[in-house]
């Protein structure tokens, strides 16, 4: 493995380098108190140093684990760096996790100190305090509401910095000592533990060294020619490797500016104000934007709607070709230019995507139609395939070689291979050092010679040599008649409809495929308004027969498109139901990164699954739910099941198939 220039092999070192290299360039912005508060790299270093020394003063030592809990705030990023400068290891935790989940992770990681955002998080920690004896200090950013708390183990971010500054002022060579201590850090050192809320079972702590993340970040920057001029917005969970690498490590290596939104629900607005140049988001985010678009346009005047639809069709027809610099007839170019002025430009502008040079979708496969839509309106959206264990980057699509059904070629310094069982394996400098305190799980995934089992089934597309992921290796199944059944593939197709938020396909080892649907409350809600369907709750709306009709049409459409595809034609959806509750990470149905935990869902809703196949037209179901405030309850419902006619497989195609067969 190539090792790094020892003067730049840890993030704190990179920080001090940036402070001198791009001293006056913005390192971070935060929409706070109505404006974008800005910190240059020099200022950032100063903040970090003060806090870091403060931490040392209150007893954080090399090798200690400390956690970061909260939304994307400059101070929380600085806290990570400040700790790392002392040789301590940050263990960020999902801010929306309920107290118990936190307790598990923090206990498992033996965290001694926590830097949290506000009262909400402090309360969670207090709630599980007795499970965390080793947790000695809690540092909070926002003092709001904490005035009357017992401050024995509680201290504010400012105060810690104040301690640090006082130390700096009083003790002349403290600064040098800190520098020296920081320099002791080595590339091979453990830099962070990221707990993956894996789609199966309890989460495991992925240990990444500085080298892992820094090298893959470097490569990624080179791959997409990212430099200090980029603007990105940090809005994804701090504890997700994507955010860690993308808004921390890559920012430090490239020297670009990270912008923290005012609040979760102002992200779109804030992204728009900043006009980010480099975007990185799970498909869900693009999905939501599209949903908003469709919903709003539905309310627009007929003329506007006609214009919009017309130009969107133009975009579908020519957009991608133009984006990929293919030859297209003049009239198409002209039409597209018009469309760009009247629709695409404004649309991208509304979402703050106008200035995006490169947009990645990752974390989960993206619905092809969705993907094409954005490429069509001229957004250079690409796919990448990554894993926490790989410090994100496994494969990515180079500019100009974009296919909606592949995830690209191997990223720089990454070796790929497909096992005989069809599973994707890789080896790279980014490969993790192992799961924390879990050697046997590590052994399962990480081979002696450094190969990692992704657990995803895939193959190299013969047409373009790019990797193609079908599904989780152990999710791909077959129907009893032997047709391949790739649930995620179906689900993605369904999820393109703005009205469908989540879909769970079942059918492995069954005679036909079925789907459980989560409707999208925004989209269906506004549809309900327009068609004056009255409803009091999600449950009520979900049960509405007219909603069923609408969803049925969507699925018919999906079936028709499935019928087009030789392989999938057999796996059309014959029956479906609309779930009486929204799938929710708090109930373990989704991961914190909003990935479906299909296995869990299928046995959680087994009565419904059974009903699919015993032909009954509805089923009674009672489910445990966890409410916002953490306490549990149960909701019961009678869920209707609908039958669908499979779309006829086009004669020509089936004929071909026979010949092929």
């Amino acid at each position: 493995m190539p090792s790094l220039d020892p003067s730049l092999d840890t993030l704190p070192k990179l920080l001090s380098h940036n402070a001198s290299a791009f001293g006056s360039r913005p390192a971070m912005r935060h929409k706070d108190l109505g404006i974008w508060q800005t910190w240059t790299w020099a200022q950032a270093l100063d903040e970090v140093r003060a806090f870091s020394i403060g931490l040392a003063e209150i007893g954080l030592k090399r090798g200690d684990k400390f956690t970061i809990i909260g939304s994307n705030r400059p101070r929380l990023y600085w806290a990570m760096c400040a700790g790392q400068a002392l040789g301590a290891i940050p263990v960020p935790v999902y801010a929306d996790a309920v107290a118990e989940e936190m307790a598990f992770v923090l206990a498992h990681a033996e965290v001694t100190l926590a830097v949290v955002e506000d009262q909400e998080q402090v309360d969670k920690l207090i709630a599980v305090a007795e499970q965390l004896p080793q947790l000695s200090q809690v540092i909070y950013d926002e003092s709001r509401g904490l005035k009357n708390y017992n401050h024995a183990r509680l201290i504010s971010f400012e105060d810690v910095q104040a301690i640090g500054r006082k130390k700096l002022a009083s003790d002349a060579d403290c600064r040098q000592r800190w520098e020296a201590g920081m320099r002791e850090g080595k590339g091979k050192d453990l830099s962070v533990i990221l707990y993956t809320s894996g789609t199966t079972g309890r989460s495991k702590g992925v240990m990444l060294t500085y080298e892992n993340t820094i090298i893959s970040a470097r490569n990624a920057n080179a791959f997409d020619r990212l430099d200090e001029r980029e603007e990105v917005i940090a809005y994804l969970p701090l504890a997700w490797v994507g955010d860690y690498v993308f808004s921390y490590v890559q920012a430090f290596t490239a020297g670009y500016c990270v912008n923290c939104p005012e609040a979760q629900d102002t992200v779109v607005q804030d992204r728009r104000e900043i006009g980010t140049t480099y975007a990185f988001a799970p498909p869900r985010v693009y999905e939501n934007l599209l949903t908003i678009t469709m919903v709003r346009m539905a309310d627009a005047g007929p003329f506007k709607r006609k214009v919009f639809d017309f130009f969107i069709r133009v975009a579908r027809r020519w957009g991608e070709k133009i984006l990929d610099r293919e030859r297209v007839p003049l009239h198409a170019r002209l039409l597209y230019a018009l469309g760009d002025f009247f629709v695409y430009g404004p649309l991208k502008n509304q979402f703050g995507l106008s200035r995006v040079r490169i947009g990645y979708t990752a974390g989960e496969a993206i619905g092809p139609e969705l993907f094409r839509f954005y490429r069509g309106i001229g957004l250079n959206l690409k796919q990448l395939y990554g894993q926490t264990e790989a410090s994100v980057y496994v494969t990515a699509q180079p500019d100009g070689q974009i296919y909606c059904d592949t995830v690209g070629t191997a990223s720089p310094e990454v070796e790929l291979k497909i096992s005989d069982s069809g599973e994707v394996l890789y080896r790279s400098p980014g490969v993790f050092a192992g799961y924390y305190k879990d050697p046997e799980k590590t052994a399962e995934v990480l081979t002696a010679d450094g190969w990692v089992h992704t657990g995803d089934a895939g193959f190299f597309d013969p047409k373009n040599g790019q990797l193609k992921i079908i599904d989780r290796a152990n999710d791909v199944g077959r129907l009893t008649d032997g047709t391949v059944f790739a649930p995620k593939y179906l689900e993605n197709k369904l999820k393109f409809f703005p009205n469908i938020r989540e879909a769970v396909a079942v059918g492995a080892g069954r005679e036909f495929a079925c789907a459980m649907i989560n409707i999208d409350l925004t989209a269906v809600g506004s549809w309900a308004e327009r068609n004056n369907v009255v409803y009091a709750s999600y449950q009520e709306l979900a049960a509405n027969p007219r909603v069923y009709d609408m969803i049925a049409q969507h699925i018919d459409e999906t079936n028709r498109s499935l019928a087009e595809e030789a392989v999938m034609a057999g796996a059309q959806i014959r029956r479906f139901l609309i779930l009486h509750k929204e799938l929710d990470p708090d109930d373990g149905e989704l991961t914190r990164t909003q990935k479906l935990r299909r296995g869990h869902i299928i046995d959680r809703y087994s009565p419904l699954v059974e009903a699919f196949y015993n032909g009954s037209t509805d089923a009674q179901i009672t489910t445990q739910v966890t409410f916002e405030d953490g306490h549990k309850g149960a909701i019961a419902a009678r869920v209707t099941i609908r039958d669908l006619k499979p779309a006829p497989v086009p004669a020509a195609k089936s004929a071909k198939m026979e010949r092929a067969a």
Partner: protein
Amino acid sequence: MRAPAANETALGESLLAVEDVSLSFGGVRALTGVSFDIRKGEIRAIIGPNGAGKTSMLNVVNGFYQPQAGRISFKGMVRKSMRPYAAAQGGIARTFQNLALFRGMTTLDNILAGRTLKMHRGFFWQLLRYGPALREEVEHRRRVEEIIDFLEIAAIRKVQVGRLPYGLQKRVELGRALAMEPDLLLLDEPMAGMNLEEKEDMSRFIIDVNQQYGTTIALIEHDMGVVMDLSDRVVVLDYGRKIADGTPDEVKRDKDVIRAYLGETH
């Protein structure tokens, strides 16, 4: 959580005291010989059936009405009656039973208007809106933004308040009062016409104001539950007379109070 605060205010010295104040409009008696005091740092509730003269009391305190008889001592200074401007300068802020916002202005401008007394740049600079004037604007904008953040109304910063839902308008009005950095904050039915959630928010804000900024608060409120767990001390008016005064529990047990309220219900 409230307990410690309550105790220390019990000994806190009096910030404002009204001594047998009487007020009448052309023969109609609104207040008759009412006396009570408000101590530094406490939350003081004024309750009573409709038409008990609660609002009139507040109007006397911040100088909107001039009582015919009685004395008002504020910060040790004794007056026959307050004058609105004097009250404002002395640090008495006020919200109103049925909103008195500047409907044509944005949330931001409404709250900024609350800073008027603290802004001094002369006319000339205002003409240029440059140099000192601009610096002053900016500096006060920062303070206002803190209040906006505190009241969680960032989203409506630049919306005309006339277009806001009732609950939010109430918040903006509170914000305008807070912008005056008052020593004494008079709240006239801060939760009137609010749903449960809004009420909870508002209660939280009131407590936070009292704790964060140590602001003394006098509030009129109908929702007994709210009054009982917000306030340190309660004074009860009925037909313009004071019929009880003391801690929430004392007042709850007082039979005059009970009668007054039962009397009101039928």
